[in-house]
């Protein structure tokens, strides 16, 4: 029974539960707790599925009630578990490698083509009229990149707000949050996952960086910078998904966006999701395994 239950819990946490939660959008009200919540869902899913694989492997070895459908069922569970684990490590290593390669290349290009700014060592200014603002995060040598177009489009306070926003990304290692979600996203096969955690986490780190920027520069400059840069005409003719800008704007509209009760609820749910399968299923199963293996 244990492998099937764990497997069901794992699959539920991988797909239908996050999809349902994403529709409510309340995790976006509490970005920090929301990130923890999404992470715990994905981790719990991986733990439950690998727990299912482990216990099913033991069942196949030890149980003597072997009917054909039970064997098939357990083999499917075992295969799913092995697949998710293998993909998890494969995803972790490829995401790590790809991200580092791309960042290094960007840093080299930016250092050769951008102008350094005497005031801020990590800042590089591109001679380009299109407004551009982004950061190349990283532990050793992060870069904050803006274009001449950004500086001429924005007022001094708006520009300061943009720099503060990017600095918050760099300082708080938001890149690690994104990398973790990218790994977890890639770890699940396409038919077993939803885009919600990755997409929402991308919005959440923007909300957190906005929070830092408005603490340092005030609400209005952050909002004006967002409108100026998100509303800028695109040279490439392609449009990104703009929902992030709308969510950020509505948080900026709220003078005090802290939600203590919702945060506590999200943290509590994270703990529950992470530990409930372990406590309810894994521990009894471990007792059972102990009794079976040690006569």
């Amino acid at each position, binding site marked *: 029974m244990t492998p099937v239950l764990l497997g069901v819990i794992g699959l539920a946490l991988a797909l239908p539960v996050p999809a349902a939660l994403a529709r409510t959008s309340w995790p976006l009200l509490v970005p920090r707790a929301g990130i923890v919540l999404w992470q715990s869902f994905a981790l719990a899913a991986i733990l439950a599925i690998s727990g299912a694989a482990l216990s099913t492997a033991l069942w196949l070895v030890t149980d003597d009630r072997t009917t054909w459908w039970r064997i098939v069922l357990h083999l499917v569970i075992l295969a799913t578990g092995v697949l998710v684990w293998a993909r998890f490590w494969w995803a972790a290593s490829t995401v790590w490698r790809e991200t580092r390669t791309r960042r290094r290349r960007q840093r080299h290009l930016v250092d050769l083509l951008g102008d350094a700014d005497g005031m801020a060592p990590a800042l590089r200014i591109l001679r380009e009229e299109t407004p*551009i603002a982004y950061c190349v995060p990283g532990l050793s040598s992060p870069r904050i*990149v803006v274009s001449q177009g950004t500086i001429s489009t924005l007022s001094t306070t708006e520009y300061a707000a943009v720099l503060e926003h990017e600095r918050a990304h760099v300082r708080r290692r938001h890149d690690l949050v994104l990398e973790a979600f990218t790994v977890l996203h890639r770890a699940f096969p396409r038919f077993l996952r939803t885009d919600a955690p990755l997409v929402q986490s991308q919005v959440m780190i923007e909300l957190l960086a906005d929070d830092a920027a408005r603490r340092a520069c*005030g*609400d209005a400059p952050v909002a004006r910078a967002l409108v100026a840069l*998100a509303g800028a005409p695109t040279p490439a003719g392609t*449009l*990104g998904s703009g929902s992030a800008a709308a969510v950020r704007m509505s948080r900026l509209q709220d003078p005090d966006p802290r939600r203590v009760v919702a945060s506590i609820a999200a943290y509590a749910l994270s703990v529950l999701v992470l530990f409930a399968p372990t406590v309810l299923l894994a521990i009894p199963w471990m007792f059972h395994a102990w009794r079976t293996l040690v006569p």
Partner: protein
Amino acid sequence: MRRLGELERSVMNVLWDAVAPLTVREVLDGLGERDLAYTTIMTVLDRLGTKEMVRRERDGRAFRYAPALTRDAATSELLHAALDEAGTDRTAALVHFARTVDPTEARALRAALDEIESRTSP
């Protein structure tokens, strides 16, 4: 390190401005007035080589150096990543301030901004 970075920029600009691959001596001359050692320039060219910005070709007993990509190509590669509006960068190598929105959404954003402005400046 900062100084080395500036030197890399200057050397790269000399190579980009040149019409043909240059020797270390020619790069040194191209840099002009500065009091720089031959070995320093070699080190810088080496570093640019490991960054795949410069390629080296043998010319008799010496080496000649040329940019691995033109200035325009480097700029467009940089901007391509910087303006990655479609979000094809799925590894989150870069974190953008904001992605461009469509006109309808831009109007909604401006309306929200008016509300914030009226709140913060009584």
